[in-house]
């Protein structure tokens, strides 16, 4: 569904992209309306929810719906790497940045690179999104350093500006610019919580795993298994999630269920597929593994 990144930077490709299929997303509640309303008013949004429940898919879907061309730029710290450089700054409607604990402010804003005898300023992904007036999606924001999160503050209020210190500039955000963060409140320790000054600049949309029937439909659609298997996978997912807080840090995500479905679709026996895609993926604890094994063998023949 997503084409290789490099072809997307050419304008006509992006035009083409808009014509391709809509990302598959099944709304569970009113999240689509909420997001549209927020976008209309340019209110920054936080997505909360466990891993693999569809946050990223949702933002892709929304960017498509809002008529935004979609671009993914994996945050790339290496200065010499051509992918990060070879971009046309004008067109960058959805920028997804996966945050990690070494993500610095200059990784977001931009930096000087040495080219030949001179240094060249290269915009960071955030800067590009600001200029292009697209959606900037910061995934797993709590992983990033505190100084990074402070950087986004002026972008989230009425100012809508990004100070580019090193160049001595203030960038005004483009019309369509919207900042979206995601975070998973489940496994963050107290140390890594979002500061209130940050979180109170956003509205929060909570995500959870979809209800069993919707999830079964999603699994069926994404993996291509038949409805029965999809149903059973969704059921297993629910059962495994019941074990959360009982030795399981995080429940089996929809993504894992889809993986299992895909394996089954490729001819792997269901029990085995669930073992590798779900059981072993969610835990290393032997007892929990055995429990999930028993759940699997109860559900799958």
């Amino acid at each position, binding site marked *: 569904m997503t084409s290789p990144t490099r072809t997307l930077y050419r304008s006509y490709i992006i035009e083409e992209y808009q014509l391709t299929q809509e990302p598959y997303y099944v709304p569970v509640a009113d999240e689509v309306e909420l997001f549209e309303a927020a976008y209309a008013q340019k209110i920054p949004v936080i997505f909360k929810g466990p891993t693999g429940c569809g946050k990223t898919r949702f933002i892709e879907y929304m960017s498509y719906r809002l008529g935004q061309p979609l671009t993914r730029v994996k945050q790339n710290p*290496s200065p010499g790497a051509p992918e990060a450089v070879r971009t046309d700054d004008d067109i960058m409607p959805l920028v997804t940045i996966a945050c990690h604990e070494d993500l610095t402010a200059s990784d977001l804003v931009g930096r000087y690179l040495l080219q030949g005898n001179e240094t060249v300023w290269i915009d960071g992904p955030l800067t590009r999104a600001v200029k292009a007036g697209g959606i900037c999606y910061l995934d797993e924001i709590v992983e990033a350093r505190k100084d990074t999160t402070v950087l986004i503050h002026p972008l989230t209020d009425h100012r809508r500006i990004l100070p580019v210190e090193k160049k001595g500039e203030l960038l005004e955000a483009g019309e369509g610019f919207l900042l979206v963060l995601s975070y998973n409140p489940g496994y963050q320790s107290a140390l890594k919580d979002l500061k209130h000054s940050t979180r109170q600049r956003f509205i929060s949309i909570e995500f959870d795993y979809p209800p069993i029937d919707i999830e079964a439909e999603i699994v069926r659609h994404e993996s291509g298994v038949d409805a029965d298997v999809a149903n059973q996978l969704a*059921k297993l997912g629910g059962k495994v999630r019941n074990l959360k807080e009982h030795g399981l840090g995080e429940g089996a995500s929809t993504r894992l269920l889809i993986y299992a479905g895909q394996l089954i679709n490729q001819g792997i026996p269901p029990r085995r597929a669930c073992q590798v895609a779900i059981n072993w993926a969610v835990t290393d604890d032997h007892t929990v593994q055995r429990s999930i094994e028993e759940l699997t*063998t109860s559900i799958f023949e």
Partner: protein
Amino acid sequence: MENQDRSTLEQIQEQFRRFPAPVADEFEKAQAKMPDNMEADSMVKWANAGVEIAEQTVRSWEAAAQYYKVSPQVISYMPFNYFMRWTQCGNDLCKESPTLATAYFEASPEAMSQLRSRHIEAWAALGNSLYKGTWKSSTLACKFFAYSPALMESLTFPELERFVSFLDALSHRSYDLAAECLALGQQIFPLIGDDKTAFIGLATALVDSGWREVKSFFESGAKALPKIDEDQRFRFLKIAERLVQGGGTNIPNVMLETSQALSEVDPEAHSRILTLSEALLEESPAAVPEFIKGCAQIMDRLSLAQVERWYEEGVNLLRQNPDGGLAFFKIESAHSESVLEALSSGVEFDRIKPVMEMYCRGLAGSEIKLAASEDLVSKGIGWVSSESPSTEGSTVFVPTLVDRYPSKDENFGWFKVVSTHQVAHLEFGSFSFEFDEPSTIFQDRRADLEKNKVEKERPEGEEQVEGEGLERAWITDMQRFFNLFEDRKLSLDIFTVVEDGRLDFRVKHEYPGIRAAYSVVQADSHKGRPEIESLPVREALVEFLVRLSLQQYDSIPAPLEYVEQAKQITDIARRVLDATSTVQDAAEATLRIYAIIAAIPNEEVPPEDWEDVDTDEEQQEEYTDPDEMEQLLQQLAEGMEMELRPDGESDYESSEEVEYRGDFKPELVQLLSQLRMQDGQSAGEADGQPITQEQLEELLQNSAELDFQAVEGDIQNSQGLFADNLLKEAGMNLPDNPEFGQGPFVHVDDDGDALEASEPQTFVYDEWDFRADDYKPRWCIVRQKTMQEGDPAFYASTLHNYGGLVSRIRRQFEMMVPETFRRQRKLEDGEDIDIDDLVEAIVDMKTGVSPSEKFYWRRNKIQREVAAAFLVDTSASTAEAIDEGKRTADDWDAPDDPVEYMVWLRTRRGEAARRSYKRIIDVEKEAIVLIVNALEAIGDVYGIYGFSGYGRENVEFYTIKELDEAFSDRVKRRIDRVAPLHATRMGPAIRHATSKLEKADARTKILFLVSDGRPQDRGYSREGVEKEYAVHDTRMALEEARRKDINAFCLTVDKNGHDYLGTMCADMGYEVLDSIFDLPERLLYLYRRLTM
């Protein structure tokens, strides 16, 4: 001639005058009784013999009198020549001691009835042999004669001889003991069967090795031997004898224990076990008792052949490591358990509990607990079968051991099916029955029925007052439902079958994977079912329904006359088998099936009047009640079902439950959950009026779920008891139950304040037995409690007292806070270009040298991620006062004057603040305060715990501050209440702290152990290695921590600490403080060092 004899006799009588009167009296009495045919000559000899005895010494007349007295009886047993030999023996004895002779004569009449004539002399000699001329020996010998008749009843003469020689040997040690054994002997020998020689032999052997045990040996022997298969007793005693020879101690006790163990084993296995024991004797006598005891424990899990393999494994281990082997046979080692597990085909609840509990939680999606059925029975709230699986609404109870099939997989499969079925009750809502909830399949009849019923029962002429409504005569919806039926037992049985059938169908529908195992279990359940043809009609139809629910659809016999009804039942029952049906559907179905069955008289049916019914047809259209049904229900509503029955029909009896489905008690479960809810709410806002004890007892009385016959005692009492237990049970799960806070051991400084409510948490840990080189599985129970709260002033005053130190420490610690960012240069990639490096690179380029590309810099975040657990020894020894030296004598020494003493004592017992001396614990507390203060400055994650306890079942673990708890006033208060408690079992406490740290999310994890001495506790030792055992367990616990990347450090104030800390801490850090007063400062210093 005759006259001559007579005159001789008279002469003899003359001589009696020389002796006290009884001699003559006895002679005369005896003379009359002597046989008539006795020759006069013999008479004279007899009379003379007596005189001869009497003449011997001053006291021998007593013997003579006794002689005459018993003569008539004795002579009846034997010819005269033997009689004279008997006399002679008495005479000889009398020479030794008249008392002895008296006893001899006295015992003779009875003894002679047992004794062969030729043994008379030998018998007398036995008595004589015990007599050593002393008073005590004489008593013993006399007793011997007195007990002889009784002894000879059970002993042969050679055995008696052995026994005497044993007594003789024992008498060298203690006459009293010998006398007691003699007395015990006569009680014991009849009990021990044919192997007395061995028994006496063992007793004799004991005299040499441990004569003090002989008496208890006799006592225990009497108890032990009857428990053993008769043919094996001899071997058992031989083994015991070998143990004695092998230097075993406390043999009587060992015998008792081993025989007890054997008695728990099938007698047919005794021989094999003893054979193995005999072989084991060659390896290690000490292991034999353990082996036998172990056998008893494992026999219900292993077959005899498997026991042998277990034995061989043990012997192998024994050869390598005697202690390990011993622990193996005691089943106190992890290895032993794993061998057992591998050998046994049975599935033990304990082993699979964690997995299955999680499985059940997964299925149900709620906080289900898993427990053994025994636990439920022991609660005394209505469940009586400890074998049946069941549930009471929040916990699933299962049998402790499943050993029905030859393979482990099959047994596990059964277990899984059983648990799944119980969880299904919860998952698919068996207990969420609501009377007013409509059925999805049937037309709802419940409400109508109830109305009719109530109207019928209302006394004539009494109008229902509008608005007041019915008095609520039920507590639970389930009860309300069952109130509809006259025959509760029948209705409950039908409901159970229908509902279980529904669940089985649902489970198989929802969980295709378990279908195969489920079908096997269902098919197997058929085996145990009663023959339908042998049952009276009503029971037969219920059984018919059971078969249906077990998914047998063809050839179920039904009475010829009632085939139509059977088909109706089938039709109704099968409609509930639907993935969407609810418990309400099951209830409506019950209503209808009950109506059908209740209308049929419960009569026996002759064997030829049965027909097999095939029910394998699909029903199509929606269910509507046929006309007959209307009628039947009408009858039901009028309570007519009972009246219609003919006289002389047998009462309906419940058939056995289907085993894998276990006990189903919906009424009780609903009641329990209601009680729990009621208790959960505060009294004021409770919904509706609270349940009264009367209501409760009424429910219990009516409920068909309680089988009062199965409970001993009268019904009234057990109802009350059940009611009480139920209320207790309902209260059990309350979060704020103070019962949990206070353990069996109370704080020494306890003022009686209620403890802060804490989670009722207990944890089980293994213990390391270094001699066996293996873990003792699940050996210690750590009880975690939250420390009580005291006065926060202690915290403040400590900080005040240590003023200077506090500010210094705080400064030092603040300096430790890492610079959040450190600039790192010469990177290929970074935040920005470093001008210096860049200039260099460009210079290089210009001069044609290949430049370094590393001219970026970035700030690296250094995160301080420390989690520390402080484990503070709060054992009793920390109550010791610290000798400060400067203290004045009056301060410390107890005054002599009683009044002053009382005053002194009172001050000693006063609050810590008023205590004029410091205890170790006080310094520990101060150290805690300082460390808390310091750590709050740098923001490390830390937990503070105290530990103590008594025995392995009671390792107390007091939380002063949890790792993830924020520092608060409560923590301050808790510090105040740290007080000396009991012993020091370090291992489990360390393990518990380790498990806490393990969960913490930090790069550096530190476990600080602060103690005042070596680890010690009741049972925290092994024979011969008292101290090392505890030290090694502690070492292992620390080692385990290290393996989990936890840095452990021990700090002790015990001056002898160097002796054992070296072993205990192996390559971990430790430090022995010279003075306890260094503790606070040193602790902080070390902490800083460790975490830098």
